C-alpha cells in the first residue's frame, strides 16, 4: 500500500492565511503526530484531510477516496443515546447488524465501558466521554483515523490513561493515524513520525521519526530527551 500524501496544501479564510504550502507523506499503518502551537491551523489541516474543508491550493492525493474515523476535540456524543447506541449510530452505515453489534460491544469492552453500555453521555464523567469518543473512532472501520487534541483538557493521569487506551485499541487494528496535538510529550509517546508546524500560517518546519518502538516508550521518558528538546526549540522559535 502506498503512503497517503498531501502536496502544497494552502488554505485561506478570506484574507487570513491559515496553511501555507504544506506537504507531507503518511505511511500506511503508522501514527503521525502533527505538532504545533495552539491556533496554528492544525485542526484546519485535519479537516482538509477528512474532506470537511477544501484546500485553496494543493492536492490531497488519495485521501478523498479513503474512509475516516474522527475523534474530535470535543467528544460530540448524542446525549439522548446510550453509550452503545452512540457507537451503533456511527456504525449505522454497515449493512450487517451482527457486525455492527459485535464491533460496538468489542470496543466498549476494550475501552472499559462495558458496564456503562446503557448509560447516556450526560451521566458519564468527562474522561469516560473521551474514552467513548475514542472507542467510537476505533469501532468505525475506516482507512484513516484522525484524532484532534483527543487527549487534551484532561489531567495528566487521565491523559496517560487515554493514550494507553489509544495504543491498546490501535494494536487491535493498525490504521493510518494522524494525531493533532500541541503537546510534545504526547507526540513522542504515541507517534512514529512527528511533523512540526510553525505558527500561523502553518508551514512544515521539521519532521522527525521516533526511533524507539511504541511499546517500549514511557511517558516523559528521558530516552527521547534530545528529540523533545529539538521539538520544543522548533515550537518556541
Amino acid at each position, binding site marked *: 500500500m502506498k503512503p497517503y500524501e498531501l502536496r502544497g496544501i494552502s488554505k485561506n479564510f478570506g484574507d487570513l492565511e491559515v496553511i501555507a504550502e504544506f506537504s507531507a507523506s503518511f505511511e500506511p499503518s503508522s501514527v503521525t503526530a502533527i505538532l504545533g502551537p495552539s491556533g496554528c491551523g492544525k485542526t484546519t489541516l485535519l479537516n482538509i484531510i477528512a474532506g470537511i474543508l477544501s484546500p485553496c491550493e494543493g492536492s490531497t492525493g488519495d485521501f478523498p477516496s479513503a474512509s*475516516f474515523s474522527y475523534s474530535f476535540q470535543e467528544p460530540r456524543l448524542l446525549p439522548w443515546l446510550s453509550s452503545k447506541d452512540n457507537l451503533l449510530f456511527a456504525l449505522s*452505515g454497515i449493512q450487517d447488524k451482527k457486525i455492527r453489534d459485535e464491533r460496538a460491544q468489542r470496543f466498549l469492552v476494550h475501552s472499559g465501558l462495558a458496564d456503562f453500555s446503557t*448509560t447516556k453521555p450526560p451521566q*458519564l464523567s468527562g474522561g469516560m466521554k473521551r474514552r467513548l469518543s475514542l472507542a467510537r473512532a476505533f469501532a468505525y472501520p475506516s482507512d484513516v483515523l484522525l484524532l484532534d487534541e483527543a487527549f487534551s483538557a484532561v489531567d495528566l493521569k487521565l491523559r496517560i490513561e487515554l493514550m494507553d487506551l489509544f495504543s491498546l485499541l490501535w494494536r487491535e487494528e493498525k490504521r493510518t493515524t494522524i494525531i493533532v496535538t500541541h503537546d510534545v510529550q504526547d507526540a513522542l509517546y504515541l507517534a512514529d513520525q512527528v511533523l512540526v508546524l510553525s505558527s500561523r500560517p502553518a508551514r512544515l518546519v521539521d519532521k522527525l521519526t521516533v526511533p524507539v518502538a511504541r511499546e517500549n516508550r514511557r511517558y516523559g521518558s528521558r530516552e527521547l530527551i534530545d528529540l523533545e528538546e529539538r521539538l520544543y526549540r522548533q515550537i518556541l522559535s
Partner: protein
Amino acid sequence: MRHSDPDLSGPRAKTMLYRRFAAGILGVGLSVALWQLLSVMIGSSLIFPGPAEVVGGLRILLASPSFWKAVIGSMERVLLSFILSIGIGTLTGISSGLNPWIRDSLAPLITTIRATPVLALILVAMFWLPSTGVPIFSAFLMAYPIMHTSAYTGVVLADKDLLEMASVFKVPPKVKFLKLRLPAARGHFLAGAKNALGLCWKVVVAGEVLSQPRFGLGTGLQDARLSLETSTVLAWAAATVFLCGISEFALGVLAKKEGGAREGVAN
C-alpha cells in the same frame, strides 16, 4: 464515576418548591382581593360581578349536564385541531428544514396565515363549514404556523458539530434524521406544541361564540351574554381557562415523562 445530578428531592429543592407555591397562593389571593375591591367599588353585578357570584355561577354550571356536554364538545374540537396542526405542521416544518425549495414555496402561505386576523378567519370559515367545523378549522389554521415554525427551527438548529460527526462517519440520511435531527428538534417541538394547545383553546372557544355549535364552551358564553348573566359569562370563561391550564399541564407532564425516559435531551 458517575456525575451526580442535582438532587431534586433534597431539602433545598423542597424549600424552593414551597416558596414558589406560597408565592403562587399569594398572587391568587391578591388578585381575588383586587377583584372583590373593584366589584364593590363598581357596585353592579351586571357590569362587574364579584368572585363569590362567579363561583356561585360556576357551581350551577358544574351541576348542569349541558355544561359537561359543552366541555366534551369543545375538548373534542381542541383535540382535533391540535392533532391536525401538530401532524401537518410537523410534516411541513421538517420538510422545509430539510429542503430549502419546500421552505421557500411554503413561506408565503405561512406568512399569510400568520397575518390573518382570527376573527376574519372564523367569519370566512362560517361560509364554508358547518357550525361544528368552524372552530376546528380556525384553530387548526391559527396553530399550524406555530407547529410548522417550531418543527422547522428544531431541524435547522440541530447541532452543527453533531451533524459534522455524522457526515464523517457516513451515517445514512434516514438514521441521521431519526436519531439526530428529530431528537434534537424535541425541545422546539414541545415549546411549540404548548403554545399551539393554548391557542387552540382560545380559537375554538372564539369560533364557537360566533358559529354556535349545539354544545360548546363558546356557545355557553354567548348564551350567557345574550341573557345578560355576566357572572355566568365569567364562570364559562373560568371553566375555559381551567381546562386550557389542565391540558397544558397534562402535555407538560407527558413531555417530562417522555424526557425522563430518554434522559439527556436538552429542552
